């Protein structure tokens, strides 16, 4: 029976987690570009890795790939952003007209209800107080909310810059980190790194694949239906899908409203709704299984709680980063617990014949 080190509770893990949470809470605004860069670096790393395993120097590969990616980003920024902003600006210009038209339609409906139904006037008054006025107050602000997302695009210039250094120097930092660790913690650190890499990498790649798929599918569908501003709606749906489940809902809501005012009937908004339900189902049936194959599985309640808590504490950024943060937290807790139970001999390893193998 080999001598065992006394089991120690994972206090250090809890301490690091608490320090990280405290730091993140106070610095979350400044951390946003770094978090996005981290996500982009994760996305690009497999490409760098492909060349690295074939003997290419990381620095040169990063520079070469970076030139290509920077070109793509620049072209995308030059083409997509002005077009999307133009469409949104046009939409903003037309919204007052749409609202006037909506008011006319609602007014006509109210008139009909008040004059043709018993107690109609009372129903209309109650509806006005409870629903109509607050909704109509918020309607003119929708374009401002949407345009409020546009400053996020300025990160497109900052994020690639930070990503460049992350891609170049991450392995060196990692190597130095492993080197300065006391040798008895090297295996724990590798375990943690491996789990974080798997959980976070798969999540980030998955979310970006989903956002891209929803964006492209929305654009193709909206163009096929002949809806105005397809690029703006598709961009909005794609970006919104960074927050789980929101992409299709946003696309359906904005696309439906635009279709209603464009075609002045209910058939087209219904088609838009069917399109986005189809996209959501397609995402659920085709993309999600592919993405979730190796990602961290969260219980739906944990998932929802993370979104609500993230949104409450950090706003929009909290919504975007809530789920990956919980994935990381789960990986850290899982590693800490795994090490604690094995050090403390609380769980025995399974033998090849299914019987438990005692430690001694």
């Amino acid at each position, binding site marked *: 029976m*080999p*001598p*065992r*080190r006394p089991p120690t509770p994972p206090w250090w893990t809890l301490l690091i987690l608490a320090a990280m949470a405290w730091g993140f809470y106070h610095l979350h605004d400044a951390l946003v570009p770094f978090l996005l860069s981290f996500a982009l670096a994760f996305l690009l790393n497999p490409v760098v*890795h492909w060349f*690295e*395993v*074939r*003997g*290419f*120097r*990381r620095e*040169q*590969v990063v520079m070469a790939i970076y030139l290509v990616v920077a070109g793509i980003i620049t072209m995308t920024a030059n083409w997509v952003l002005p077009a999307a902003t133009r469409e949104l600006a046009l939409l903003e210009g037309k919204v007052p007209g749409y609202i006037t038209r909506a008011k006319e339609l609602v007014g006509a409906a109210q008139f009909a209800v008040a004059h043709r139904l018993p107690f109609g006037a009372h129903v209309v008054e109650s509806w006005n107080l409870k629903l109509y006025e607050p909704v109509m107050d918020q309607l003119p602000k929708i374009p401002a909310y949407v345009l409020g997302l546009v400053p996020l695009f300025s990160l497109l210039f900052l994020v690639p810059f930070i990503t460049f250094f992350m891609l170049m120097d991450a392995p060196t930092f990692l*190597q130095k980190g*492993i*080197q300065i660790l006391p*040798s*008895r913690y*090297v*295996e724990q650190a*590798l*375990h943690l790194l*491996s*789990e974080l890499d*798997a959980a976070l990498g798969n999540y980030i790649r998955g979310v970006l694949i989903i956002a891209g798929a929803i964006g492209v599918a929305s654009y193709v569908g909206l163009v096929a239906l002949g809806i105005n501003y397809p690029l703006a709606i598709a961009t909005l749906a794609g970006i919104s899908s960074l927050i789980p489940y929101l992409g299709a809902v946003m696309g359906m809501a904005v696309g439906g409203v635009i279709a209603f005012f464009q075609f002045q009937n209910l058939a087209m908004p219904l088609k838009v709704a069917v399109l986005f339900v189809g996209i959501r189902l397609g995402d659920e049936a085709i993309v999600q299984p592919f993405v979730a194959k190796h990602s961290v599985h969260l219980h739906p309640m944990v998932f929802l709680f993370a979104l609500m808590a993230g949104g409450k504490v950090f706003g929009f950024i909290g919504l975007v980063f809530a789920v990956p943060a919980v994935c990381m937290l789960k990986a850290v807790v899982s590693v800490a617990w795994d*090490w604690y139970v*094995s*050090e403390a001999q609380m769980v025995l*390893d399974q033998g090849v014949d299914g019987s438990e*193998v005692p*430690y001694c």
Partner: protein
Amino acid sequence: MPSVLDSLKRFFEDRRFSARLEFLRDLPLCEGLRRHELGSLQQSFHSRVYKEGEALFLEGDIGRALFIVESGKVELTKRGPDGSPQRIAELGPGSLFGEMALLEQLPRSASAIAVEKSEMLLLYRSKLDEILHYHPRIGVAVMRHLARLLSARLRRVSDQVTTAGASFSR
């Protein structure tokens, strides 16, 4: 034209990577692997330099990584009945040890101490899982070598038990 290509190749080539690839190619663990497969395997390793006298792991630690000596020397010791460490092996470049940790989470049966400044390659068990999943050809090569290693050890222990049994019955 070839000189331009050579210059370009030199510009992009990672010489440290190539040297480590040659080192891995000579290991029985990597027998039959192609160059890019060796590259993938190499990317799964972490390297660390241990100072003279530094413990890589101690007997009784829960092990989860395989170690390969890239340079330097490592001594494996095991506590004797009186508690004093007894040397069971001294390993040089190309040797691998701690492979049982890749298969099960059990305490290390020996301690490993760097006799001199040594550079080690570490393969963590979840990295092996990744290799098995994404690069099954490499995973099969690694597992085949581990199986051979275990088989050889089992045969040796079996011979020792047979010999001990025969001398006991005499």
